């Protein structure tokens, strides 16, 4: 029973002392280098299994694309009114996935959430590779790939009449900006670690890392400039990420199709993006933790925090989803209402209900600590959440085209062909392949940031130890002072 302010302070401090730690504070800095650099040498066998399976999946996608390119879009079963199909649904999914890196690197960096430090690097890599994957779908769905440059904003001396009012041009510009900025952000943040790789590598690798580390020596001047640059680029990335997915939402909202005109569409897209990004972080967290033996760095408390964050974002997404349904239901757009009814009762109903179940009900399992601390359960849940989020994107696109404003669209149910499914599967292979290659070539845990985390936490621990010596009440059985 706490009766006084002093007792409350003691209780709070005790809780702090005995809190499960995100990372051990006594890990030697040299050990951090050694552990992370080991991941560039010999990963577990599962790494190669995933890599080869991803490569095989990617080849399936490439074969399907070659077939579609040579034969025409008919083989994808895409025809009016179904002009987007799985391609644009999956495009939005990958764009959404890219928000994970921005969330962990930029938003949590500005909020001084230092638990992000061991896991933000791979999340940034996810951002880059998922944007590269998303960009491919823009070209794949065009059919006439060679006319891709029509969407790129450039002066019109060639009389190609780019339409700057088109959200497709906005999309191309936003994605290009986001992709290049994310790559720069990833690279700049990695320079001190590349210098560590340089100092420990031999042969060809040494030349490679020497070239990339640009002669970094960790001088005060370099660190001071680095600090300002990293923070500034992080500040740019947050509004950029929001603008990218808002623009993707605008691709839909400015069209004539029913069901895409709710005011909350852009924030709904952004919330969905953060949600799927967080779920993917959990999946890859678990995979990397095992494959590269990162148990010391990708710890259970960090996984738990990521799970809590995912749960919170899942609830935001659920709320915005309900806003969309209720706005449509109580609104005066009969076509939008009809489209909603069609989603819930028409040909796509099983997938629509599954999307709602996986996206809004399954995350409630994350409310239980026992589940959050169970790695196999978290792996399954995170995959299910991403299946739900992929279905969400598909359910935004296809049911609307199957139930447009004009009656002639109502009897054109075109199930995606194997070519479409093959290219979608290939995109997952492409992403996994690039991601695994990245983790094999570059340090997927930020060594210098983990050192900072260990250093600052050890200072806090030292301060708390001093406090316990002054106030012995803080020292309890099993605690640091006993």
């Amino acid at each position: 029973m706490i009766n006084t302010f002093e007792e409350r302070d003691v209780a709070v401090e005790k809780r702090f002392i005995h809190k499960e730690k995100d990372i051990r504070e006594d890990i030697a800095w040299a050990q951090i280098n050694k552990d992370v650099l080991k991941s560039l040498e010999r990963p577990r066998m599962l790494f190669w299994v995933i890599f080869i399976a991803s490569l095989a999946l990617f080849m399936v996608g490439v074969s399907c694309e070659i077939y579609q390119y040579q034969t025409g879009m008919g083989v994808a079963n895409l025809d009016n009114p179904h002009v987007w199909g799985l391609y644009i649904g999956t495009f939005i999914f990958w764009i959404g996935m890219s928000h994970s890196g921005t969330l962990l690197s930029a938003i949590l960096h500005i909020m001084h959430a230092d638990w992000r430090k061991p896991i933000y690097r791979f999340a940034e890599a996810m951002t880059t590779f998922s944007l590269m994957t998303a960009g491919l779908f823009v070209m794949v769905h065009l059919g006439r790939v060679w006319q891709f440059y029509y969407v790129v904003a450039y002066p019109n001396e060639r009389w190609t009449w780019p339409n700057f009012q088109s959200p497709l041009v906005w999309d191309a510009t936003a994605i290009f900006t986001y992709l290049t900025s994310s790559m720069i952000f990833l690279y700049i943040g990695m320079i001190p670690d590349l210098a560590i790789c340089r100092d420990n590598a031999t042969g060809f690798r040494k030349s490679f890392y020497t070239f990339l580390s640009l002669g970094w020596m960790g001088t005060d001047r370099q660190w001071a400039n680095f600090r300002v640059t990293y923070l500034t680029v992080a500040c740019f990335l947050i509004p950029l990420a929001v603008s990218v997915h808002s623009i993707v939402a605008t691709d839909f909202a400015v069209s004539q199709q029913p069901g895409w005109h709710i005011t909350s569409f852009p924030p709904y897209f952004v919330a969905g993006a953060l949600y799927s990004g967080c779920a993917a972080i959990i999946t890859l967290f678990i995979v990397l933790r095992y494959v590269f033996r990162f148990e010391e760095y990708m710890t259970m408390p960090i996984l738990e925090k990521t799970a809590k964050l995912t749960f919170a974002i899942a609830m935001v997404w659920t709320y915005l989803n309900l806003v969309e349904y209720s706005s449509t239901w109580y609104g005066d757009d009969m076509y939008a209402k009809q489209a909603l009814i069609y989603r819930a009762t028409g040909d796509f109903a099983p997938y629509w209900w599954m999307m709602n179940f996986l996206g809004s009900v399954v995350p409630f399992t994350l409310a239980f600590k026992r589940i959050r601390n169970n790695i196999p359960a978290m792996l399954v849940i995170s995959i299910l959440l991403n299946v739900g989020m992929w279905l969400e994107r598909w359910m935004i696109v296809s049911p609307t085209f199957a139930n447009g404003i004009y009656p002639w669209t109502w009897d054109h149910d075109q199930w995606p062909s194997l070519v479409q499914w093959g290219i979608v599967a290939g995109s997952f292979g492409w992403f996994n392949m690039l991601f695994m290659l990245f983790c094999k070539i570059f340090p997927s845990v930020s060594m210098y940031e983990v050192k900072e985390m260990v250093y600052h936490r050890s200072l806090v621990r030292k301060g708390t130890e001093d406090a316990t010596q002054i106030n012995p009440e803080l020292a309890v059985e099993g605690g640091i002072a006993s």
Partner: protein
Amino acid sequence: MSKSHMLALFTDFDEASNAIRELKASNLEGFNIKDVTLKSPIEHPEIEELLGKRPVYVQFFTLFGAIFGGLGGFTFISSSQATFLLQPKGGKPVIPIPPDMVLTYELFILFGVYITVLGFFIGAKLPMKRHKLYNARVSEDQIGILIKADDTAMPAIKDLMTRHKALEIIGEGSK
């Protein structure tokens, strides 16, 4: 007077900062605190402050890049649209402000980021050739203090570093 370099390695920040503090207060002839460079595996703003004000100009590059991107972007888009004067616009404005703002915003960020990074490279003097006294342990777990001073001041500086438990002292001649 000829100048030479010396690198002292420390195991912790406290000893390194004490050494810098004493070096600063020593007023040794032939030595200037501006010629001290701290090398560390992590950033440590508190010790950097001990070395005196060493301004960072990255933010000015950012400001320039963002303004250039925004204004240049809008000029690029609107001038491109303005060449469409002969094309019928159906009563719509030749330069529509709301949609152009989207692209202007993206280019504002794009150039803001690019020029910031350019500022970083210039400010941090990257890419650069590593100093001959660079020691790989600095990227691992040790803190290095690189000092440039007159040859006559070197023995006193070395003595000061030894007193502060420098793990190793490397001079230009010893490497």
